[in-house]
């Protein structure tokens, strides 16, 4: 009885996402994996270089690097709560902990947990970026930290780029993720045959 030593497709897909190009490595196509991996990571880093770290802008986090919150406001005229939620982009850690303006306002919680689709629809390019794997998560973590206002300032430590810098940076990083998806699918297909 022969033993099947080929790696499982699931393992190939997961590793290919974890390290771009490594799916080919698992099936023994090393030069293909190195070439694709370097091209994808270089394009992602090129996007960060052109647009700055704030290009990595994960859904659910606001301009100042704190999780956007949902608040149900109190309507003093009708003396009832509004029947809709207000999205609050906190500018400080204190406001992120307690986003309510009024004692009668009701804090619902992070917008990402309660309306993830709306948050994702607000920043769809992140879907492409996240396909690059943990490098996108790492860039997002650094970006969130870099967005926090400096001590004694109300401005972001590193503001987001804008105009062409932002567009090209977002394009590079999102296309890098899309190319990694292509590589993931191809390595999985090669692993299955």
């Amino acid at each position, binding site marked *: 009885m022969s033993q099947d030593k080929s790696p499982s497709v699931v393992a190939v897909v997961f590793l290919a996402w974890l390290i771009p190009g490594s799916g080919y490595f698992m099936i023994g196509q090393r030069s*293909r994996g190195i070439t694709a991996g370097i091209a994808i990571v270089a*394009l992602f880093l090129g996007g960060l*270089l052109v647009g700055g770290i704030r290009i990595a802008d994960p859904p659910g986090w606001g301009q100042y690097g704190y999780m956007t919150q949902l608040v149900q406001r109190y309507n003093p005229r009708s003396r009832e709560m509004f029947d809709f939620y207000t999205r609050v982009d906190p500018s400080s850690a204190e406001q992120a902990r307690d986003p309510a303006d009024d004692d009668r306002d009701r804090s619902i919680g992070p917008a990402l947990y309660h309306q993830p689709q709306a948050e994702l629809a607000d920043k769809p390019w992140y879907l492409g970026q996240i396909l690059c794997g943990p490098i996108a998560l790492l860039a997002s973590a650094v970006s969130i930290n870099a967005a926090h206002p400096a001590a004694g300032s109300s401005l972001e430590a590193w503001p987001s780029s804008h105009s062409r810098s932002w567009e090209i940076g977002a394009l*590079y990083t999102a*296309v890098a993720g899309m190319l990694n998806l292509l590589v993931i699918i191809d390595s999985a297909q090669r692993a299955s045959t």
Partner: protein
Amino acid sequence: MDPNSMHASLAYMPFFDPLPIWVQPWLWPLLLLPLCLAVAIVYKCVKCRTMEQLPREAAGLFITIVLGMVLTAAALAGLAAYMD
């Protein structure tokens, strides 16, 4: 190192600040080239049977994409000029 304190120097920091390419506006179109190159290489990594074929195939695709973009841009610029 705390990024907030680093930024206090206001010096350009690669990967944190955007690339100051706006000082030379003619450089913007050149940013097309790395993108096309990466797309050509990765696409041909997927399509080529052997990696020996890759440099030639990727170079061909790269040139095709760039020429296509340049011709499209020229056609659109001509159309815009005609419409004006």
